[in-house]
């Protein structure tokens, strides 16, 4: 499913931004990669939910961010010097989890990330020297 979603997103990006710069397109492709990752992982995972939320509320981000910051009380606010701080920043939705779930989410996130990287690498390889 990941391949399907990502390729569709990729083609969509290419089709809709023929004139934009490579940088802008690459940002969109990167977002598409993360979105397809999150969709494939499903709603069972906290990190995928966090990612999807981030993408869905992209337009209303400011409005929702304000709301969520006041309403959402972090379960375990990261204390200064906590060893998992770096990890919390890296994994989407990591700031809201306790350490135990953070490790679990990290494992799943790493698995999905490596799948995505392999997929993109194989696409690049398959298009390969035939590209522009």
């Amino acid at each position, binding site marked *: *499913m990941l*391949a*399907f979603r990502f*390729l569709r997103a*990729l*083609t*969509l*990006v*290419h089709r809709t931004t*023929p004139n934009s710069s*490579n*940088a802008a397109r*690459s940002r969109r*492709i*990167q977002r598409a*990669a993360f979105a397809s990752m999150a969709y494939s992982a499903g709603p069972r995972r*906290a990190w995928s*939910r*966090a990612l999807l*939320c*981030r993408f869905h509320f992209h337009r209303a*981000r400011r409005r929702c961010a304000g709301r*969520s910051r006041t309403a*959402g*009380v*972090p*379960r375990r606010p990261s204390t200064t010097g906590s*060893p*998992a701080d*770096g*990890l919390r920043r*890296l994994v989407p*939705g990591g700031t*809201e*989890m*306790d350490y*135990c*779930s953070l*490790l*679990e989410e*990290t*494992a799943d996130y*790493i*698995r999905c*990330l490596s799948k995505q*990287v392999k*997929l*993109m*690498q*194989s*696409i*690049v*390889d*398959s*298009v*390969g*020297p*035939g*590209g*522009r």
Partner: protein
Amino acid sequence: MDMHGCNSLKNEDNLDYTYSGNSSDWQQCNPSIGCLDSGNPSATVSQGNQIGSTPCSSISMADPFGAGLWNLSTESTSLDLCKDKLQGSSNQITGNSMSIGGTLLQTGSGVLRPSLSHFPSDSAFIERAARFSCFGGSDLGGMMNPYSAAQSQIPHSDASRESSGAQIQKNEINMMEAVRGASLSTTDHGSKEKDNSHAAATIRKRPSEGMALDQAKVASQISGEMDDDNVELEQKAEQNSSSAATSRPRGKQVKDGNESSKEDFIHIRARRGQATNSHSLAERVRREKINERMKLLQDLVPGCSKVTGKAMMLDEIINYVQSLQQQVEFLSMKLAAINPRLDIDIEAVLSKYVLLQTCNGPSAAMGSSSGIVRPPPLHASQQGLAQAGLSGMINLPDLLRRSINAQMTAAQGYKEEPKMQVPNAWDEELHNVLQMAYNGTVNLNTHRVQQ
């Protein structure tokens, strides 16, 4: 991030589940302590406690073992029961302490042992010892003789004990093991006698270890509570300490076996030198979970097996995640630059792919595309874009050839070789999609040419 609510909700669900899972496990592990579940405490009590205990629903969860302890004390018959057990166990004292420890761990008493987990401090233990000593002088004397006789038969236990840390801690550890044993079996009255024998063995060992000081303290606290359950607790504690002391190496193995065999309970084995109250238990469970997950991560992250220590592991993991995210960014830049060919017809191709997927699976997709393979070379030259696209696409069949199953026996041109078996499902999916893209593009180019 806007997922605070969602995440917290999910986390709450997880925590609630875990917590209730723990509570139900504790309830089953400690049938004499019905306070963990407000429903049906009497049943659990009757199951696990022949002495019987009042429902302790009013008792807070923070001290479930203590609650059960006090419930036991309300029964007057427990005293007689203890007496009988002590006398009966004296005959078994001469048995091998190692075997006692092993059987203790495996059978468990199930009745009073759970309550013994409430053994937080030396003073509590001393109180129980005091009660035991004041419980029956004659009985104690009668018991002590065979105990001392048997004591000489267990020199190894002394050595093991001496090598251990504080004895109180050992006792606590033994109590935990007893709790574990209790959780493994239903109330076993017969095993209680064994436990008492172990208790006797423990009593024996204690003096040799220099428990004179404790006994002195005990004597000073004789005026304390005369609860029967405390006596029984002492017995249990002694059992536990003896079993733990003598079967410490075996205990861990038994524990592992028990952990693997009983998966519906959460068994927590206190290790040497570790506290055993409920908070520490929860902490230990949490720590074990964390260690488990760190091991999983260690397997995922390459090159992490040499690194030891949580901090280093975390650094490695963080570096790996960062490197993966950088790779995604880099590849997306590449894809932005080099991939305008694929986009034209992939939408149609992918929709066709989805249809075929739903109807017939990948084999049909492969089969249907076989007939389309031939025309590409004819039309590639007629459209610059198609040609460029096809030249870009030509790599796809190579890729597919390498990794897709040989279902395209009729395939010619670019797909003459039988495909290799796909190692992963997603690889197959990717290649199916790419192949469909290739074929779809070819098809559409054909259409364009015809127009």
